[in-house]
């Protein structure tokens, strides 16, 4: 295989892995809508969600984590203007180091120091503005799950109205274990980068997670990764 062919081959496998995640989120959004729609009148805000329905949301989120053991967490996040005051904005479940899944609690009081202002985060804004899949990362989810992660989302529509997102997280360390073996097959220094050119995983110490590739050296090859998360790329350049 030529270098370009190897690069495209790696990009295709990474695309498949990302599709695997979105393939969980589509049905998760549908299931969440099926659970919640009977409790919401069209055009009205979501009222406090009964314990019974929260458990149903937990079951569908946990099922995603069971099928995809590398994911860190999954759940539903509501749009602030679509719920009644006092209703929990985030129903999120996460596994700990021992594989045990438990709910994550977030701070929703704007005056609190740890306030989680998620409606400004790209995984929410992309989904709310485009009505399509959202993506963010790598980022330190400070005041969120406090880890170095990537987040994938799909919009949640209730009676046709945008009401929030469903999503899943993966740590950068986990995605590295998934992507690094593929990058080894690419000759030269190669990196999996996000839409702003920030390295997610690299195959050498030249490209490390978190670095931003502002200028690419001459001869750099770039291929886009065809996936619902727009703007992901693979880059490669000859070893120095």
């Amino acid at each position: 295989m030529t270098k370009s062919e190897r690069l495209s081959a790696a990009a295709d496998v990474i695309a498949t892995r990302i599709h695997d995640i979105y393939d969980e989120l589509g049905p998760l959004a549908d299931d969440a809508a099926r659970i919640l729609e009977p409790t919401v009148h069209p055009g009205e805000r979501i009222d406090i969600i009964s314990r019974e329905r929260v458990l149903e949301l937990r079951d569908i989120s946990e099922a995603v984590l069971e099928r995809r053991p590398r994911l860190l967490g999954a759940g539903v996040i509501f749009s602030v203007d679509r719920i009644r005051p006092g209703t929990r904005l985030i129903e999120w479940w996460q596994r700990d180091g021992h594989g045990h899944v438990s709910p994550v609690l977030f701070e929703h009081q704007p005056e609190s120091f740890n306030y989680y202002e998620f409606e400004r985060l790209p995984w929410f804004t992309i989904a709310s503005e485009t009505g399509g899949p959202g993506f963010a990362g790598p980022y330190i989810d400070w005041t969120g799950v406090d880890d170095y992660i990537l987040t994938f989302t799909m919009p949640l529509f209730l009676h046709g109205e945008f009401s929030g997102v469903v999503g899943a997280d993966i740590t950068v360390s986990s995605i590295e274990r998934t992507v690094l073996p593929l990058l080894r097959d690419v000759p030269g220094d190669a990196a999996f980068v996000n839409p702003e050119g920030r390295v997610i995983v690299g195959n050498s110490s030249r490209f490390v997670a978190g670095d931003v590739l502002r200028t690419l050296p001459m001869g750099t090859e770039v291929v886009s990764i065809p996936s619902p998360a727009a703007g992901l790329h693979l880059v490669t350049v000859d070893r120095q």
Partner: protein
Amino acid sequence: MGASNLVEAHVYRALPDVVRVDAIVHRIRTAVSLGLLHPGDKLPPELEMAESFGVAAATLRDALATLREEGVVETRRGRSGGTFVLSAPLTGDDVLTERLQAISIAELRDFGDEHSAVATASVRLAADRASEAELDRLEHLVERLAAADGPLACARADCRFRIEVAVAAQSRRLTLAEMRLQDESAEMVWAPLATPYDRDSVVREHTSLVEALRARDSTLAEGIVRSSVRRTVYHLIDTKLTLSYADDDDGAV
């Protein structure tokens, strides 16, 4: 404050919420390996240790039992009794390899970011504050590294040098931070897991660092340390990348 108090504050500091017996065993074993605790040193009384680790007495006793089995410490009964450091355990290359494999490149990069922050702050301050005696001492520690025999001896000498730079900066917090960072990395850095860590380059770096400190040139000192930390982290990343070829999985999410 004497260095031994700092070592105590470092070694016996409160533990993160992980498996605590293992964490205590690891903490003391590494401290002995790196020469922060020496053969013959007496550990604090059990209750005192349990309190500073923030664990139950039974948890601490389990940890000491493991350390006794490994031959790292022994407990003597009687009036002059107590728990004493016996000998430095050798952490096997297989254990170090496993430890390095468990750390992601993203985490190694983050480790390097913190190390760089701590080390550059230390040398800037040391350039202002180090006494002539401390600079002589650092020079002596470089000679010790140059003469060290084997990876563990190199790890100890290098670690000692880096910690004493923070000591010369007169900062207790930076010294504690440097000790923690050395704890996490020194053995892995020096163990010949893939390509050996090049001692001559380190000796050269340390030598030019001491010269920069003597010249009170904080900017030069900072540059030397920044590139030294970067080289160390790249060494760990390259080592990990070389080793990882062996155990790639299918990579599904």
